[in-house]
């Protein structure tokens, strides 16, 4: 077995207890903490004890905790997340159908954050302590302090309502929403597969503001890490050597420094998926984006308990998989990492 394969397997085995603990924490948070699901669902409405009991039996929360825990875990293992109490459709089915929308948004957000954060960070590092550097650092800190939902709304006010460059919300506009037939659920990909230029333009215009919102919110962190990492590398002896050899600054930065500076940046990049999902909740709410985060929000507002639990478990599993992939990705970036 090759080294990488063995490492992948080890890492996979380590992910299992992690996921297990995460699922347990979710179970405990949702069942043991004050406010049981039934009263949360009823939202303080007065009901007779009989009705309350019937709800408890229906949701299975009348049984002792260990029994509930076993049912919960075995359900998840079998891929059964329960049925939504509002629509009575299987929660997992609903989540899977909405998943591509969230991923599409997250990927484009990450792309924008990557381009913006990485380029500004590297630029700042190569111009350290000069006016451009200070300007970029202020931008990074401001991006940290910005409430994401507010940024989204500001974009809507100026680019959608005032300038009318982009649509205010949604994934598809007007006629297109009825005529466009998705294949994979990733609309950008679908439009390309169907070779439909008009649809593609519409989809990208709808995607622009939400992904820019999500992207800018993450730019600060990526930019700061890029800058710090690049500064660290530029301070190394081999960079001095490269300069002493008479190489141009461009070659030194692009060929010698950049690749070494990339390692911590990729780490942060991967870890951002958690923040990205958190940001997606707000972005999807602001832009009425039909993803899993907006499903979770609707489940919360209608107190659809199983849908809440299902969404949280789904997101937890997804994050674990992403973390695993990022971990395995290191070796491609840094040939020194051997497994």
């Amino acid at each position, binding site marked *: 077995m090759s080294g990488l394969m063995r490492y992948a397997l080890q890492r996979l085995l380590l992910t299992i207890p992690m996921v297990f603990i995460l699922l347990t924490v979710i179970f405990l*948070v949702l069942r043991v903490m004050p406010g049981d699901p039934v009263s*949360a669902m009823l939202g303080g409405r007065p009901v007779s004890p009989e009705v309350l009991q019937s709800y408890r039996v229906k949701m299975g929360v009348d049984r002792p905790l260990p029994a509930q825990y076993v049912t919960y875990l075995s359900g998840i293992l079998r891929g059964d997340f329960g049925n939504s109490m509002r629509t009575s459709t299987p929660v997992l089915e609903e989540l899977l159908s909405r998943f591509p929308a969230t991923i599409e948004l997250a990927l484009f957000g990450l792309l924008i954050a990557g381009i913006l954060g990485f380029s500004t960070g590297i630029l700042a590092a190569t111009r350290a302590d000069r006016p451009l550097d200070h300007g970029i650092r202020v931008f990074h*800190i401001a991006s940290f*302090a910005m409430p994401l939902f*507010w940024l989204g709304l500001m974009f809507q006010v100026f680019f959608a309502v005032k300038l009318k460059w982009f649509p205010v919300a949604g994934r598809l506009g007007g006629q297109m929403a009825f005529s466009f037939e998705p294949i994979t659920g990733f609309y950008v990909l679908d439009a390309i597969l169907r070779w439909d230029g008009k649809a593609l333009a519409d989809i990208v215009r709808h995607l622009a503001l939400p992904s820019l919102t999500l992207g800018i919110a993450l730019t600060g962190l990526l930019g700061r890490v890029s800058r710090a990492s690049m500064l660290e590398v530029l301070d190394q002896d081999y960079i001095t050597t490269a300069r002493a050899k008479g190489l141009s600054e461009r070659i030194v930065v692009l060929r010698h420094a950049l690749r070494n500076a990339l390692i911590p940046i990729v780490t942060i990049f991967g870890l951002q998926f*958690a923040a990205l999902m*958190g940001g997606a909740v707000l972005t999807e709410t602001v832009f009425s984006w039909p993803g899993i985060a907006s499903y*979770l929000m609707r489940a919360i507002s209608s107190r659809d308990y199983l849908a809440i639990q299902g969404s949280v478990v789904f*997101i937890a599993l997804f*994050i674990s998989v992403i973390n695993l992939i990022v971990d395995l990705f290191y070796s491609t970036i840094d040939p020194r990492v051997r497994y």
Partner: protein
Amino acid sequence: MSELYETPPIRHSLLADCAVRLVRGITRGRHALRGQTVLKVGVVIVFAFLLMTALTQVWPAITGFHPTQYRDAPRLESPTATHWMGTDQLQRDVFSRILGGGYASLVVAFAAVAISMITGSLLGWISGYTGGWLDRALSLTMDAVYSFPSMILAIVLVAMFGSGIGPMIWAVGFVYIPTYFRVTRAEALQVRETTYVEAIKAIGAGRMRIILRHVAPNTVNAIMAVSSFNLADAILTVAALSFLGFGLPPPAPDWGFDIQNGQKYLQSGSWWMITFPGLMIITLSLGFGLIGEGISDLVNPRRRRRRV
């Protein structure tokens, strides 16, 4: 406990120790703060917000217009000389509302950070110092919680607890526990291996005493830097929770809720109802962030020199 190691009673408590450090820090501060513009700006911003919030709590109509009862202005008016930041759909002055709108954010952020700091640090010290299966179990649990998006966790918790200041404090406080756990555990692991800990162990000091008197004080610097960044983040989280409708019930002024309210009038171009509360959130969060930057520079001179 050995008589060799007897110290005056006041120094026994961690709190007193922190206080002593703080006073020393302030008295030495004049010198240390020279050139710390970032820190100073941050402190000024945060104090201005605290003062403003306290004033509006005592005297809500400080601008001449009451934030909740005022009904004399035109409806949805853009900024004018009388109403600097315009009025909302219930003819209330937006400026008066944003001045008092930080109350929930500040209370929740400070209380939540206090909860997570105390819980997370205690667990971190114990876990890092003790080691063994307890450390492994706690670390795995904390890592699992940490890997989950904190915003979603906070939203789900508030949804379970019910909305308002109390539930928000518990939810946000819970979410940040791993942040402190990770920092203090890492520091405790280092301190555990030092010679002086070995020495006092030889004298016969108990485990709890070593943790509180020797491990804990060594992590204070790290905790301080983390907690300022954490406060900046907490302000944003609380704002988001209010925006989603889990905050103060109306008509109380609240930045997050006021932005949500303004969203309904966005299509008609009422930008002022959204813009100004948002700018307040940014400024306050920025203030805490700058304090964090400043403290990190202070406690880590290498970082200061390198300006990383």
